[in-house]
């Protein structure tokens, strides 16, 4: 597993600014490229110290550190959850076979490749306007690699655009994408779009407002909120929107 910035700098999570600086200086005394004597050694130290500096550049800055801490925490929670879920996935799945589920017994890497091909094909169909068949391919991609957020989003959009109902299915696909990749606000935009398509303004507003919690200045979301006449939600965001409206 990749080391986090605290582990790279060899400090604890609650290290003070001073501790971090001291740790950086200590590591610099040992591993700065200037301490190397042979070209190979210098090259090796250059790479190693670059990593140490990268960690330091984030942790030395209060704001960047806070941001990093949040991200780190989310990742750990996610990893813990995934750890809990691996068992059911390994258990033999009952039924639910489709034409493209050929990758079932294949080794993991092959299945990922199959998923990529299915997704590529689905995207081609999606772009050509054949949403019904695109849906099938996206489903096949997900069957082979469930953890790729993009597959779920595309599935949701394809289901929605195929105009064969399936609203709930579209929503749950996109919600799964958000779960997998909470930092990509585009997924949240897609969710809002779906709610808007079926005329559920209140849910759309809620989706866009949720998005603003992650990206407070997202122009698209603000634009949609203004268009939907939303000013409610959290006071902070309504202020932003109000300000934009006044302009």
């Amino acid at each position, binding site marked *: 597993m990749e080391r986090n910035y605290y582990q790279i700098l060899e400090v604890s999570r609650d290290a003070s600014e001073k501790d971090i*600086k001291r740790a*950086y*200086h200590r590591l*610099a*005394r040992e591993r*700065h*490229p*200037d301490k190397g*004597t042979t070209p190979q050694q210098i090259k090796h130290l*250059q*790479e190693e*110290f*670059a*990593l140490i*500096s*990268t960690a*330091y*550049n984030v942790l*030395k800055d*209060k704001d960047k550190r806070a941001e990093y801490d949040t991200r780190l925490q989310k990742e750990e929670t996610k990893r813990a959850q995934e750890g809990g879920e691996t068992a059911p996935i390994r258990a033999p799945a009952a039924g639910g076979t489709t034409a493209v589920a050929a990758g079932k017994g294949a080794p993991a890497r092959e299945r990922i490749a199959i998923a*990529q091909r299915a*997704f*590529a094909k689905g*995207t*081609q169909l999606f*772009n*050509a*306007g*054949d949403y019904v068949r695109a849906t099938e391919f996206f489903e096949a991609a997900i069957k082979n690699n469930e953890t790729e957020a*993009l597959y779920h989003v595309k599935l949701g959009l394809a289901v929605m655009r195929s105009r064969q109902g399936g609203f709930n299915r579209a929503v749950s696909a996109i919600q799964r994408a958000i779960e997998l990749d909470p930092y990509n606000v585009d997924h949240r935009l897609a969710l809002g779009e779906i709610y808007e398509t079926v005329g559920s303004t209140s849910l759309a507003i809620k989706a866009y407002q949720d998005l603003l919690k992650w990206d407070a200045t997202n122009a698209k979301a603000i634009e949609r909120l203004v268009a939907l006449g939303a000013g409610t939600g959290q006071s902070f965001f309504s202020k932003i929107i109000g300000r934009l409206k006044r302009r």
Partner: protein
Amino acid sequence: MSAPIVGIDLGTTNSVVAILRGEKPEVIPNAEGNKTTPSVVLCEPNGQTIVGELAKRQMLARPTETIRSIKRLIGRRFSEIQSQLERFPYSLVGNSQDQIRVKIHDVERSPEEISAEVLQKMRASAEAFLDEDVSQAVVTVPAYFNDSQRQSTKRAGEIAGLEVLRIINEPTAAALAYGLGKERTEHVAVFDFGGGTFDISILDLDQDIYEVRSTCGDTALGGDDIDRLLFEFIRNEIGEQTALDINNDPTAVQRVMEMAEKVKCELSTLESTTINLPFIVADETGPRHYHRTLARGEFEKMCALLFERLLDPCQRALSDARLRPDEVSTVLLVGGSTRIPAVRELVRKFFGREPSSSVNPDEAVAVGAAIQAGVLTGSLREVLLLDVTPLSLGIELQGGVFAALIPRNSSIPTAAKKRFTTVRDNQSTVWVHVLQGERKQARQNRTLGHFCLTGIPPTPREIPEIEVTFSIDANGILSVSAMDVTSGASKSINIESYLQTIAGDPDALIEEAERKAEEDRRFLRETRQKMRYIRSLEMFNSFVNRYQGKLDESDLAEIKKSMIRLDIALTENNLATAEEADKELNEICNRYSELFYRHKLGYTA
């Protein structure tokens, strides 16, 4: 003992060379016995060059053959310096790649070559003084120099036969000179106002570690500009008194320039001085003279706006360092322009304390470079410099947005990775545009280079993952690489070579882009057509199934034959044959006009 490594302060107006002897730095005098050498190069008609004191003395007699302030031009593009052209008495031209060339006696020289002449002179001084060959050096540059300016300085060293082991920032070097042997822990600000550039750096000194917290500056603000103001002042007065413009006479220009510099220096110690320029111009009534006294107050008023430009970088450096002015315990003044009382006063007011006078403003930078040379030879094991990158580095994204990978004031050496993707289906090439600067809009930052990553296998857009890696070495010099994660195709550049290697390529890039766009359009068109024939085939299939009994035997056979033909054409991707077969099918079925028409309508509706 190992081969000597010298430290060279390659300045806009003066250069200095120093060496570490034992643990003690020593400034090396030149052949004329001076510790500073003017960065002036005289080009003789026979192609020979003279550097330093002797060249400076010729400035008056031969202004168009004497090159000064070359540091203002190094690593810049010809298009960038248009507004300053008239400041240079010698002739400057741009070549087809927008590089600057100094043209004297029909010989074109690059700024790197001119700087190399100066470095060569410093090297010769050191060799004479040490009685040893010198082939390695640490060279200093303004902290706010960008990547190209650093690269060019390094190349100048190579031309001079010097391996530049390290490029260090001038204010950081001055801090080394100040801190050596002090073992103190404190925040230090270095205010470096030289002949051509201004830098401010904030450092943390921690025993033997010198960590730069932030740096800021202006690469086009220095003593030269003050001289220029005085020059304009005198020129205007002569113009008012005589109605003659001295700009028409290169020798007069040079005399006034020299007088301006002299007046500036005198006013640092005197309250007022006299400007005496006899026979400066002549008209039909005979020679005319210029004479007046200038008080320090008048001079300061003249420069007030220029001095004000020093404050903004100070403010920014402090806020980037997250310090208040009073948390800085020592302020070092470096560079000849800090001798001006008004500048010292400005610094004293800004930081709320008396600036330290413990380093020699002319020599500190070279001394610091010599100390860093000592670190590299291993004779100063404990000392360690941790510098930062002065400007943000990143790439251009779709829509012309600048995405910083390494923000300004990041500690170096460092590296950053970021993943990007394609924007078009089957896009096989990604264009990586590397920039440096603080603007959000890419085109307002400075292009350091660009290159193409090719060989991305055809996939829908947003599928490929392109990993771009930036790394900055201890010299502050950048290298960039890009890799397609799935295919493993990769490409990297050392930014320095960009002008040479990219030449002529942009046209090919545009052509490639246009060809790709056409390919994309064709792909889309064909896909749409194909989808239409597939639906058509389905429709005929159901028509036949439904009305089999009502169709003529021979017609039925023909229909089936054509359907097979269409099916094969579609699997073979042969759209021309598919079109023919589709047409045939329509013709045959039209014989059953009403039946067919109704079926078709029902099928498509």
